[in-house]
């Protein structure tokens, strides 16, 4: 099974032992930080994918930069109607996958998500919690396909 990046492991460890109330506080704190994951002035990207699609309540933009060491750096923009859980996952995943290889992101098993958000929230809103992860993996997959096509 693929290993999670250390930054993501740290977040998983941070959340794993929390009681439900503390976990919610932690998620809200991550959600409050979502705006800071947006692209910063002067940044450029290898792939930009902004769209409003069926799995989310507002527009989500995923911006991917691959550095010279072939490591991923994500930025994400969220429309104002995006739900709190999705905003929390945005911060968690941007931090957790920052500096990971494209293959690590693509192969990351989604079973870490319930460890972070907790079984109750997964049960209550199972369709919300995986959305941003799916968009990030999709961006990486497109970038990898482009690389393969360019080198063919």
């Amino acid at each position: 099974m693929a290993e999670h990046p250390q930054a993501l492991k740290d977040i998983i460890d941070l959340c794993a032992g929390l009681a439900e109330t503390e976990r919610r506080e932690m998620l809200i704190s991550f959600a409050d930080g979502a705006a800071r994951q947006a692209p910063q002035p002067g940044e450029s990207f290898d792939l930009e994918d902004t769209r409003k699609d069926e799995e989310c309540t507002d527009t989500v933009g995923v911006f991917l930069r691959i550095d010279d060491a072939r490591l991923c750096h994500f930025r994400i923009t969220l429309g104002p109607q995006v739900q709190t859980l999705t905003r929390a996952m945005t911060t968690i995943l941007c931090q957790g996958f920052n500096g990971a290889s494209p293959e690590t992101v693509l192969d990351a098993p989604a079973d870490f998500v319930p460890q972070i958000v907790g079984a109750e929230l997964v049960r209550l809103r199972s369709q919300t919690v995986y959305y941003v992860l799916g968009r990030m993996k999709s961006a990486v997959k497109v970038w990898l396909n482009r690389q393969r096509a360019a080198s063919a």
Partner: protein
Amino acid sequence: MNDKIAAYAHPDVLVSTEWLASHLDDPSLRIIESNEDVLLYDTGHVPGAVHIDWRRDLNDQTVRDYIGPEQFARLCSAHGITPDTKVVFYGDKSNWWACYAFWVFQLFGHRNAAVVDGGRAKWVAENRPLTREIPKPSTAVYPQPAARNDAAIRAFYHETLAHMQAAKPMVDVRSPGEFRGEVTHMPEYPQEGVLRGGHIPGAQSCPWATAANPDGTFKSVDELRAIYQAGLGLNPADDIIAYCRIGERSSHTWFVLTYLLGFSSVRNYDGSWTEWGNMVRSPIERSTP
């Protein structure tokens, strides 16, 4: 009570944000927030409001059904609600889930209830206070209701089928694309496992949002009459079923028809399209734009 609210058929079930702001310390009230966004309450809520989640608190956890009388009594007791408490609901998404929770409370006959016009969005837009402090109301005594009274305001599949066969009025409150069968979910929502797109034969399309203003408040009684009576040809004495995807948007329309326009026999088919669209041998219609 403002003039707009006073003009509705049952003005006692709708309160303004101004009214709520002036009753935050009223001990005879229990304010209840009910949302789609499961963490929204935790980010800040109307002072004194408790949180009721439609899936965690109102749905049975193993049967696709609502909680029973014993669980309802326990839920109310835990939130300091007695049969005499006025429960005031508000929430996100133009009060979909507030209306849904209101509807579930009516299944148990809790008549002393109201919805905040404009819901959470209007309260926030008016810069009214929010707090993260979770109230801890003293446990109250809520006697277990004798039964959950589904018959008057809830429709099941076989009843909806009979209703369709009798060509009685039915309102499909989903988006136009869902009604036509082009999509099987709301435009910005996940697919929830419906096999077929379309609508119940004979149903008229009237999306829930037709009844709401951009700020989430309900339209005036004259505007609502124009939509449902002049537009759809519905009469206050008609036997009507409203449905959507899982019964949340149709709770909003049920509330409008029953309380704002005073229709006497409106039922919410909560099985809605996730049941009808999947049911073996249930007939459907599709239409073109």
